[in-house]
């Protein structure tokens, strides 16, 4: 117990200067260190508990209760926490003075990345409003067939929204056989999307077309 506490504190000291520079929103990444630091602050206020106990322990919040156990160890380490307290308080004061920038929360990161990617793609080629039931014509550049653009026409069976990988599913009867192709809307290979017409549908996904007559999926 004694050795572990001595080992922990140097680590804690090493970590403290980093905390104020980082956004607190990212604190969840380093829960172990952060909780220990926060505990150390609280412990300094109480001045009767210590920071050091097993790293693997999950009951960090209950350190106050365990303070009595390691009261003997606390004597050795109390001198060091005082130094820690000063540095921590100084950093806190500095933080309060600088203007508080809006933090990007972890959960928003993917959304922001997707939006940026979509913006970039929209600059090159704007994507029209496509909904289920539209009959669209897509001009696709196939790397294997570089001479001409392949044209795919058909009814939009479904639209899956997934940021940059938003896809639409086109169905058409080609040469007697039903073919369904999933296209990523923001793909650079797609050179043109045009909505030719619209069919009234009362569904978001038209999977029933697979069981219906081919006539309903034929588009000249």
């Amino acid at each position, binding site marked *: 117990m004694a050795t572990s506490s001595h080992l922990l504190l140097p680590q804690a000291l090493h970590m403290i200067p980093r905390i104020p520079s980082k956004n607190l929103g990212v604190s969840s990444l380093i829960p172990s260190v952060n909780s220990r630091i926060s505990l150390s602050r609280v412990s300094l206020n109480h001045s009767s508990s210590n920071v050091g106990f097993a790293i693997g322990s999950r009951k960090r919040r209950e350190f106050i209760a365990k303070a009595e156990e390691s009261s003997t160890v606390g004597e050795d380490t109390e001198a060091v926490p005082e130094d820690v307290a000063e540095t921590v308080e100084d950093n806190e004061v500095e933080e309060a003075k600088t203007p508080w920038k809006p933090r990007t929360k972890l959960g928003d990161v993917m959304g922001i990345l997707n939006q940026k990617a979509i913006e970039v793609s929209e600059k090159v080629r704007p994507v029209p409003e496509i909904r289920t039931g539209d009959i669209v014509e897509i001009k696709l550049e196939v790397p294997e067939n570089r001479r001409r653009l392949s044209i795919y026409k058909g009814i939009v069976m479904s639209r899956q929204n997934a940021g940059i990988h938003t896809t639409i599913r086109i169905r058409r009867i080609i040469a007697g056989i039903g073919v369904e*192709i999933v296209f990523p809307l923001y793909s650079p290979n797609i050179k043109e999307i045009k909505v030719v017409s619209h069919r009234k549908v009362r569904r978001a996904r038209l999977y029933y077309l697979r069981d219906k007559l081919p006539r309903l999926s034929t588009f000249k």
Partner: protein
Amino acid sequence: MAAALASRLTKGRSLLGGLTNAFSGLVSSSSGSILSQQQQRTFIQMGTRLKVVDNSGAKEVMCIQSLRGKKGARLGDIVICSVKESATKVDVKKGKDAIQKGKVKKGSVVYGVVVRAAMQKGRVDGSQVRFDDNAVVILGIKEKKTDEKGKEKKQNYKGGFNQPLGTRVFGPVPHEMRLKKQLKILSLAQHLV
């Protein structure tokens, strides 16, 4: 009927071309009730009935071995099939549609390449393609010689099956044939997907 209903498994909507992020995860979880009604199409394996779309003489074959993949064959793979149904004598004998005389009979074992599969095949650009049926183009007949069977089989497969047995291919053919070096089939195709 009960079996058909039972076969309607939940299709994992995470097959969005390999790009699964938080949004796609949300999409798949929220539309759970719709997903459970979709059919999940799987590989072409032993026992699968396939349509023959060339004029080699066979009409329907049954897959007895997939030459690629542990779980089964996909679009573009080669399979070994047994002919279950072949064209009768009454069928077209002359002209462009002519069936190659006596080439493939019922019961013979043939090699075929899958040109249409009900299971979706992902492409490098993130798109997926799937057809409404399973179809195969016959490439060659497997010799039944007992002595040279091992040798014959190795020779055949080494050379690679590039030439279809028939002279015409019906229906749409995907671009995957180019990757599988089935250029003759591509040139014979009515429509390229």
